């Protein structure tokens, strides 16, 4: 009986961890340039709904910097890992990117942001 209780508690903990909502505030600084919805209107940067899994420079409505277009032409896509590297220092990964945001050095901050971006996949 006790063993079942422990197992149930463990599963409940996993479930609650999975269901834990993202820290949506992590996306606040991005809102000045990016939309997280297809109805976001014209923004200074590309829309980011469904960004993880799509090609680099993958918003057809946005003209990208040559360095990102070259990455797309080489077949590079936005995996979670690549986006994490990009956010940690955009110029280090793609020197010449038009995006002007500073490096996000804090891994937790990046994880929070990636959580929000992953959540946007559902709206894709």
């Amino acid at each position: 009986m006790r063993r079942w209780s422990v197992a149930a508690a463990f599963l409940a903990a996993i479930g609650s961890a999975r269901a834990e909502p993202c820290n949506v505030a992590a996306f606040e600084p991005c809102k000045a340039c990016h939309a997280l919805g297809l109805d976001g209107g014209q923004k200074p940067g590309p829309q980011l709904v469904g960004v993880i899994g799509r090609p680099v420079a993958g918003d057809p409505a946005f003209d990208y910097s040559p360095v990102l277009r070259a990455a797309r032409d080489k077949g590079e896509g936005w995996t979670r890992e690549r986006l994490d590297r990009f956010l940690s220092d955009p110029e280090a990964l793609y020197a010449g990117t038009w995006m002007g945001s500073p490096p996000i050095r804090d891994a937790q901050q990046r994880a929070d942001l990636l959580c929000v971006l992953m959540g946007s996949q559902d709206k894709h």
Partner: protein
Amino acid sequence: MRRRHLLALSAGALAAPAVITQPARAAVETRDLHGYRIRAFAGPSGTGLHDVACNADGTMWITGQRNGTLILLDPRDGGLKSVGLGSGASPHGVVIGPDGAAWVTEGGQNAIARVDDKDHRVQIWKLSGGPSYANLNTPAFDKQGVLWFTGQSGVIGRFEPRTEKMQVWEAPRGAGPYGIAATPQNTVWYVSLAGNYLAEIDRATGTPRIVEPPTPQQGARRVWSDSQGRLWISEWNSGNVSMHDPKDGSWKKWKLPGERPRAYAVYVDEHDTVWLTDFSANAIVRFDPKTETFLSFPSDKSGGNVRQLAGRPGEVWGAESGTTRIVAIDKLHG
């Protein structure tokens, strides 16, 4: 109508000892184009050069957004010094104050920073209240010595160095406040990149008065005043340079050359000639309002991405964020 909130009223500087790296020398390359000399100084690697400001003694300050520094360049001998702004620093804008110091919108610490022009001591005034990350963007001084600033998270603010009084307000339409400029007539204006507007700030109350540019969704990124107090605006989304004359409320606009221009920076020189940067063309572009013609100065390296311009008589300065070079365009004759 949305109520405007006073978000912060704070005082108190945190002083940090200046961390200055060993002086270095920047390699310089020169070339001539269209009757101008272009100088390109190699900046320190990994710095993420962003905005520039011209000191009265001929030296330049440049923000290093990637490594949290303010970089001093002496163009006469290529001398370089880096001043650390503190842990987590990520400076965006820089302007020279009436006291001769460099004043920085230091986004990483959510603060206004001052770097003394003589001993390079760093002082920090953190924003309190308002967003924990205002995404501080650009500063400008008015004639009373008050520093006005923007934050892309949706704030505008002012800081009085004399009393250390800081005030921060919510901006209309939320996220977006970007470039800011004071005019010779002592009015203060800013633009909102995401909000797509120009606004004059009432210097007494901090209340902005929006002036709608003629192109919808234009993405007004930076603004500079000419000698007459006319506001020149670089429009990122539309690729236009536009001009608003507050005297009669009129607007004019011109499309930059090329198929899909992306106007980022704007600066107006002592002859009221307008200088812009175009990311699509990878160029600094000169616009003559008298003849309404453009003259392009493409970078000799790919992905230059000059994000801001400033100058002194006969010289236009910017930093290529993508190549880590500091560039000057000097008039050769006349």
